[in-house]
């Protein structure tokens, strides 16, 4: 079964067409990475997939049901899609625990006790068992993003969308967040990840999409995209991003050295 499917999705802001007929699908348990230059429409695509933006044409299905975006409430979507933003977007007046507990209580109607138990488990799972009573301002960026992941997981979504989850982080904090995401992937979570962490994408993904100027230019296995991309634009993009592109590093011979 396909957890998520987008058919011919288009979206414009005024005159600017940001998405030009996007087709993609993600099977249950699959990890799909989306790479591409900035401004190519990756964030807009994720925002459409989770209902934050309306689409001009095309269809989006979640578990084969059409996605209906409601202006006022996403209650019906919350247990289907989780979204992780580049900027964490934690609620600063609440502790980690309260951040994670809120939606299960208010949206799913869990009792306070149950929500607290769930939140603690999830915070432990992302390695923050000792930070449950800290506020976002007392946490590092990496810790904040892990709280955000726990918060999204608390709604037990069928699919998680990550929009450059590590782009706002200091380099030394990237690893801890990627580790959590990799762990989720291993546990079978269905995910779409927009990322500039090419080596991570290569390791974790079942499939990779290269997007440019609102279109999917190339789609394939990590091997196909990162080692042997057929499209010249994909090659140009990777060459800019990976100084060693085409040499042994990306081909995995030195993989042990670049492991995360």
């Amino acid at each position, binding site marked *: 079964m396909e957890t998520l499917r987008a058919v011919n999705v288009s979206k414009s802001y005024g005159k600017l067409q940001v998405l030009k007929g996007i087709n993609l699908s993600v099977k249950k348990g699959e990890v799909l990475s989306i790479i591409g230059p900035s401004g190519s429409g990756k964030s807009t695509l994720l925002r459409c997939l*989770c*209902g*934050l933006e309306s689409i001009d044409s095309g269809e989006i299905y979640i578990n084969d049901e059409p996605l209906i975006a409601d*202006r*006022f*409430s*996403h*209650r*019906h*979507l*919350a*247990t289907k*899609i*989780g*979204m992780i*933003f580049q*900027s964490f*977007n*934690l*609620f*600063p*007046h609440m502790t980690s625990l309260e951040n994670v507990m*809120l*939606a299960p209580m*208010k*949206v*799913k109607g869990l009792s306070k006790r149950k929500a607290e138990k769930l939140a603690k488990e999830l915070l432990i799972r992302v390695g923050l068992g000792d930070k449950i009573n800290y*506020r976002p*301002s*007392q946490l590092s960026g990496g810790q904040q993003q892990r709280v*955000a992941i726990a*918060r*999204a997981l608390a*709604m037990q979504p069928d699919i998680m969308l990550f929009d450059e989850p590590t782009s706002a982080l200091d380099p030394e904090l990237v690893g801890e967040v990627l580790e959590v995401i990799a762990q989720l992937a291993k546990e079978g979570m269905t995910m779409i990840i927009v990322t500039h962490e090419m080596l991570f994408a290569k390791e974790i993904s079942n499939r990779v999409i290269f997007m440019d100027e609102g279109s999917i230019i190339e789609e394939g296995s990590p091997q196909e995209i990162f080692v042997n991309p057929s499209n010249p634009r994909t090659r140009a993009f990777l060459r800019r991003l990976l100084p060693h592109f085409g040499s042994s590093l990306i081909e995995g011979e030195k993989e042990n050295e670049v492991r995360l």
Partner: protein
Amino acid sequence: MKLDFSIVFPYLPMFFKGAKATIEASILAILIGLAIGTIVGVGRVIPLKPINFIAWLYVYVIRGTPLLVQLFMIYFGLPSIGVELEAFTAGVIGLGINSGGYVAEIVRGGIEAVPKGQLEAAKVLGLSYIQTMWHIVLPQAIRNMLPALGNEFITLVKESSLLSTLAITELTMVGQQVRSVTFASFEVFIVVALIYLVITTAVSTLVRYIERKWQVR
């Protein structure tokens, strides 16, 4: 000429009674203003065009007309359509309605200062608009708003002196009464001003105390 405050001393109990009326009227008007201002301020930002318009109109009219005229409309005008209010009631309601217009703009500013990303996160988590407002936006907005609200409360205390025009014996009115019997105009209004200063200082101290207590740790 020398100032002689001893003339005023026998009237101090009257001043304190006036100050009490000023404080009572101000507190009641602040509460009314906060209630109206919260509703109207939220009305300015919710995604419902007709409500936005009504809220905008309220703020536009209140801020574009003099408080004194608003007070006269309520006290002298309403009886002609059968609504007769006691002077104190009319004054408090008038002050509250007026303050509501200014508080609404403060509330709107406080709400709009909450980063959009949090609203999006809340939306994706399935929280309804009202839940998002209540649990996420307003608690932060109140903190953003406190300094401006403090100013508004101080302004309100000072503007409550206009209630004297409705023959309410608040502080300024007491000043006029004492002046008319003692003719010590300067001394009387220096005392009146000092009492206002004590009240407004108390308000700003209280607001700063709350600000510090509510700071995000």
